[in-house]
């Protein structure tokens, strides 16, 4: 049977067909849907959201050493978090099989960096596969399990946004059951003590030799001979673009098994074409090695190393063809930055923080990163997950040291707190910085599209679970001043921040209200009730002061003609923030 699938759905299908029984991940664009889709194979695969990527990978390490088949998936920066186990895991190797999917983001559509994670394969000395479409994404999971088992090595599959989020046709197969491998205790294999690692270090090099042979003979590194005046070596989505632009005017070596680099095959291909182009997005990963092997080629000398490639870029840069475009006027285009949703409780927090002077607001990664933008303008930094609390600690130390009058407020989401905020907060307490940590507990991982986490009380496969209690956790970490508030009550929020600012010790405010888009769980309904509310403007009362507009709610519009605010009844989620900031009570609950 054939089915249209995204690359992520195909990875999930591949996991099913490969007989994988365990999957662990932490959400992150563009990788999130891999685990979401694996979780649907409830009878065959145990799928878990881990609190972070390191934990996810370590769970897979354990599962595979114990003898099972497992897969971990994460976005590119997630592999930074999981890099520690990655390198050790390369040494110990696995017993069952282990697949690690990294989803990179050329073009930085929804990430912090444009890093090229192929270098992780090289640095950790692990085999790496790169699909060019969804069919290959599925096939490669099955192949990765086989390679993993044969060489007792974890295998990396590297995807990019355009592979993850593009649909193409996939031929479905059936699941093959893979029996577990017997586990035998062997400290000379599974403990990375120096003496053991020194031994494993040699084995790693031996393994790479075998994998190099494998790569040179892999069906994923395939040659298509056409006209030999142009030879193209390409990987991932760049291969599809090249085929689109050159068709049969060029010969191709598609690189799907990209580490160890199949240099024998590359040499053979290069020797039979007149001009060689190496086409890859972002870094010259293949090109560097090809040039180092003494092979002349074009690559980053003509193609950009920043951002995504496209058929058009290749046409322009390689063929020298520049097509006319419609003459649009760029100055007529108004931009459309993402905004906090109507009814989002984060808005209240940033509205309150934005009003205060002398704050250094240490932000973090999540929807609430949007608090940095106008009209809220309430954030100083946003670095990487968990950094709000720890960078806030550092900033507070510096401000104290240099006698700068700034108070640090670190703002972190619930999912991010569980990911890597807890150790940062421990540092605040242990090393005594007087920071305020504001935990935006919207009861879900919002940014990546609503995944459960330890605080929601549900697992990835919808089972009820122990709900992690943030209040108890922060108290156990040693925070003496903890307040739990409803951020949509501005008075309460205002007072809590005032009190925290006056407190001479570190404090925590937990702002607890569910994401406006969250499908409320049974537990949520019990706690927050089911509310459907709309607010309306009493036209005759509105004085056009725009105070409500300054909350940045997308449901509000200032009508220039009447000089009054309008509320879009379809968008309004009834949070009441605009009504609370209105100085003349012109915004009221719609009684209809």
């Amino acid at each position: 049977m054939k089915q249209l699938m995204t690359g992520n759905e195909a990875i999930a299908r591949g996991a099913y067909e490969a007989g994988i029984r365990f999957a662990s991940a932490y959400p992150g664009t563009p990788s999130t849907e891999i685990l979401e889709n694996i979780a649907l194979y409830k009878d065959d695969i145990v799928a878990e959201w881990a609190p972070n990527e390191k934990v996810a990978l370590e769970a897979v390490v354990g599962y595979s050493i114990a003898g099972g088949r497992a897969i971990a998936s994460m976005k590119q920066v997630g592999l930074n978090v999981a890099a520690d186990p990655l390198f050790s895991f390369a040494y110990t190797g696995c017993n069952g099989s282990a697949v690690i999917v990294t989803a990179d983001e050329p073009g930085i559509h929804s990430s912090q960096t444009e890093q090229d994670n192929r270098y992780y394969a090289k640095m950790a000395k692990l085999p790496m596969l790169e699909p060019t479409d969804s069919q290959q994404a599925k096939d490669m999971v099955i192949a990765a399990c086989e390679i993993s088992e044969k060489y007792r090595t974890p295998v990396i599959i590297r995807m990019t946004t355009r592979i993850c989020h593009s649909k193409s046709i996939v031929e479905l197969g059936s699941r093959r059951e893979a029996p577990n491998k017997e586990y035998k205790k062997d400290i000379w294999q599974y403990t990375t003590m120096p003496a053991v690692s020194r031994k494993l270090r040699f084995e790693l090099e031996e393994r790479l030799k075998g994998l190099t042979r494998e790569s040179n003979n892999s069906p994923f590194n395939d040659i298509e001979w056409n006209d030999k005046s142009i030879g193209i070596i390409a990987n991932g989505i760049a291969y599809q673009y090249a085929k689109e632009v050159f068709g049969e005017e060029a010969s191709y070596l598609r690189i799907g098994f990209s580490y160890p680099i199949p240099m024998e095959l590359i040499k053979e291909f290069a020797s039979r074409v007149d001009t060689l182009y190496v086409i890859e997005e972002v870094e010259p990963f293949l090109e560097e090695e090809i040039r180092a092997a003494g092979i002349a080629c074009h690559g980053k000398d003509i193609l950009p190393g920043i951002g995504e490639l496209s058929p058009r870029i290749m046409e322009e840069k390689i063929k020298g063809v520049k097509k006319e475009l419609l003459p649009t006027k760029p100055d007529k285009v108004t931009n459309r930055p993402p905004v906090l949703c109507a009814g989002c409780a984060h808005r209240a927090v940033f509205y309150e923080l934005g009003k205060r002077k002398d704050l250094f607001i240490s932000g973090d990664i999540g929807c609430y990163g949007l608090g940095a933008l106008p009209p809220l303008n309430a954030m100083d930094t946003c670095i990487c997950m968990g950094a709000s609390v720890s960078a806030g600690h550092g900033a507070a130390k510096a401000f104290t040291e240099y006698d700068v009058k700034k108070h640090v407020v670190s703002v972190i989401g619930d999912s991010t707190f569980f990911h890597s905020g807890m150790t940062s907060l421990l540092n605040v307490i242990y090393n005594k910085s007087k920071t305020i940590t504001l935990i935006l507990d919207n009861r879900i991982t919002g940014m990546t599209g609503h995944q459960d986490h330890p605080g929601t009380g549900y697992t990835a496969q919808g089972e009820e679970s122990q709900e992690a209690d943030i209040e108890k956790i922060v108290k156990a970490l040693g925070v003496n001043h903890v307040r739990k508030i409803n951020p949509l009550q501005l008075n309460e929020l205002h007072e809590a921040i005032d009190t925290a600012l006056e407190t001479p010790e570190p404090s925590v405010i937990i702002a607890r209200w569910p994401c406006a888009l969250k499908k409320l769980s049974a537990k949520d309904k019990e706690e927050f009730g089911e509310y459907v509310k709309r607010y309306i403007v009493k036209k005759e009362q509105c004085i056009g002061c725009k105070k409500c507009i300054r909350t940045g709610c997308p449901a509000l519009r200032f009508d220039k003609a009447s000089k009054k605010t309008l509320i879009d009844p379809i968008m309004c989620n009834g949070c009441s923030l605009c009504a609370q900031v209105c100085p003349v009570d012109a915004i009221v609950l719609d009684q209809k």
Partner: protein
Amino acid sequence: MVKAKSILIVGVGGQGTLLASKILTQGLMEMGFDVKMSEIHGMSQRGGSVSAHIRYGEKIYSPVISEGEADILISFEEMETYRWLNYLKPGTGIAIINNYRLPSAPVLTGQMDYPEDLIEEISEIANAVVVNARDIALELSFAKSMNIVLLGALIKIAGLDNMDWENIIRSIVPEKYLEGNLKAFAAGMHSVI
């Protein structure tokens, strides 16, 4: 060999572009085409600009449409049409425009003005077909079916109507919204005859 065709669907997060493209690509596959689709939806829930690139033909390589290569640009919002207009093939490309405006944050807060004459601007340089999808959807008293109205118009204009689309919609849309969506689809097809 059937030449590859490219359809670019654009809009604002939450407008239902993804459902429209899902129905379209499923139908194209069942018509026997090779199909690829690429979407960028990272920040889509936060009211950002969203796009779905759809390509079909005998054999498709790139899932992404380059600037100047779209045979049809269908846009769920006026400004989005203009933002993506340089993706339309000069000369033969057709822009299907929903004459519906969703002002973005800089407009809502009064930092920028929403241009009044976008449809005229577009019509001057491209073949434009305007669909009053919102009015049509409201007439059916199903405001949320604007996306399916536009899909109907698209399928008619792309000449893809020799296919049982009702059946495809039936297989994708939940029962509770089915009837409304089928009506919206028919009304959309009808709107561009």
